[in-house]
């Protein structure tokens, strides 16, 4: 398995260009992005600004045609698709906006499913799952099916699941957009508190700039995007 080196930047992107077809205009072009280990980055931008594309690249689902993508020194572009999937399973925790969980599995099974894809042993997975369930106050519904939980509860399970294999990087894609402001603040605090235990780097994507004060650094995704409006209208 690829070794994680803590002294290297958590995320290092250089001259990255991504498009579905080589002839197309790149959907995303990033000259340089550096994230230090343990940083909490707030990535904001309006919808259609290439946020999901960036997340797909960071998580190793898609590979850019040009440029370097390194996570803790491991280049994702040179790994086979299978290795990238394994790398993601091992070192990343991903939290979505909503519908994070497999609805027909119980809370516990959702956590164990995550562990199933990582290198965690069954024994460790069960123990860790139990710890997280207790820590996040989920003990009363650990055997409840995910589809029967409230959105707030679901997001808590999502945090627990992201943390179960102590990931080096947590990628959160608009995780608070379905929550009201009280729940939102609780969620972010919960995420940070538990991420600190593992020392995880957090990439938090949102269109809601008011959240930026929680983070060590904010990055405007439109500053990367080559999609500027005049060019787009020229195509159309």
């Amino acid at each position, binding site marked *: 398995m690829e070794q994680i080196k803590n002294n290297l930047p958590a995320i290092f992107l250089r001259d990255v260009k991504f498009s579905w077809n080589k002839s197309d205009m790149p959907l995303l072009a990033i000259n340089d992005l550096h994230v230090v280990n343990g940083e909490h980055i707030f990535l904001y931008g309006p919808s259609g600004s290439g946020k999901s594309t960036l997340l*797909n690249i960071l998580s190793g689902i898609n590979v850019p045609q040009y440029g370097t993508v390194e996570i803790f020194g491991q280049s994702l572009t040179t790994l086979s698709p*299978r290795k990238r*999937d*394994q790398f*993601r*399973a091992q070192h990343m925790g*991903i939290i979505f906006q909503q519908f994070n969980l497999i609805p027909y*599995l119980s809370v516990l099974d959702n956590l164990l499913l995550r562990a199933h*894809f990582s290198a965690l042993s069954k024994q460790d997975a069960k123990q860790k799952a139990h710890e997280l369930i207790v820590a996040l106050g989920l003990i009363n519904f650990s055997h409840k099916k995910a589809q029967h939980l409230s959105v707030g509860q679901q997001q808590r399970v999502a945090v627990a*699941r992201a943390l179960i294999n102590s990931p080096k990087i947590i990628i959160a894609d608009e995780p608070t957009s379905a929550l009201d402001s009280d729940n939102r603040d609780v969620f972010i605090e919960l995420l940070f508190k538990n991420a600190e235990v593992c020392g995880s780097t957090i990439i938090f994507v949102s269109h809601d700039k008011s959240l930026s004060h929680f983070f060590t650094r904010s990055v405007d995704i439109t500053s990367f995007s080559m999609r500027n409006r005049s060019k787009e209208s020229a195509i159309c």
Partner: protein
Amino acid sequence: MLIKLARLSVWNRRATAVLTLLALSISIALVLGIDHLRNQAKESFGKTLSGTDLIVGARSGSINLLLYSVFRIGNATNNITWQTYQELARHSAVDWIIPISLGDSHRGYRVLGTNEVYFAHYQFGQHQPLVFAEGKQFEGVYDAVLGAEVAQKLGYKLGDKIIVAHGSGEVTLSKHTDKPFTVVGILQPTGTPVDRTVHISLAAIEAIHLDWQGGVQTSGHKISAEEALTFDLTPTAITAMLVGLKSRTQTFSVQRQINEYSEEPLLAILPGVALTELWSMLAMVENLLAVISLFVLIAALMGMTTSLLSAMNERQREIAILRSLGASAGYLFLLVEIEVLIITVLALLLGAGILSIGLVFGQHYLAQQFGLFVSANPIQAYTPLAAGGVIFLSLLLGFFPSFIAYRRALNEGLSQRL
């Protein structure tokens, strides 16, 4: 975990899964059922006659001879003289001969004239002899022994009087009303044409035709039943003979001798060979049924594929989540194929179950209505192989939804369009 995931995923979509399962189970029950009936019919067909080494009749086709002598279908082209019967009975290789005289009927059922040798040596199935359910074999001239179906369908019991009609068919036949028969015996069901036969003695056949000539009753003088008994009732001709030999090794030489008999043109056939020959004529119907049931199965499998395909759209979210957790595209492919496997295996078990239960309840009806004796166990030696074939076919068709899951996983990334 993969299997648990597949199992719970199928269960999550249980409404469509159950319908798919039912459609598949029923078609599997149908395929197995048709195959089973085919086998059983073939088997019971082959068991119609047993223990008889040669069937002898006037020269015609072997199938024709088999049909009228054993299945009571069609008519003989010609008769055999009683002298020939006596001569063959004296043959050193011959153990026994059942003489058969056909031509009359009773309410649609064929009447067969024979003698006591019939009850002693006629065998069906695996050398099963005829057994009386009630009464005994005929002794008097006007005694009749009924097959199980005749007695059951027409509601006859011992002591009832029956009238034999001249010729075969159900209506407008001139009847031998002057010489009624008394039911003295009823046979147990055999699942063979014996069940549909009224047995009387050869002497009785002679007696009822004493005052008949060329198919009509002579108008001149009538001979009453009592008077008839005073005549010599030795038959002058019979329709066919079932011959048992002392040693089976002589079958071919006796057959050749009969076929080369110079006094009258005869035909001797081996029942087994003729039965196989006849069955192969029915093979087309048999194959047609098999093909139809196979198409039904394929339609059901395609139904399953369709339902899985349409489920793929609502499962996009699930796929994205699994991908984010680190599931490879191959894993998702496998997940869908395992779902296919779960449904198919359940359908196989359920289908076999439905059929077995159906057979347990249908057995009686089939035996009563069609004289077809089927076992309740449809599992054959090759059934596991056929089940493997069904599983293979379903996995092959499951390739489509699985491949869509695979491609989605690669292309759509983590985006969750709703």
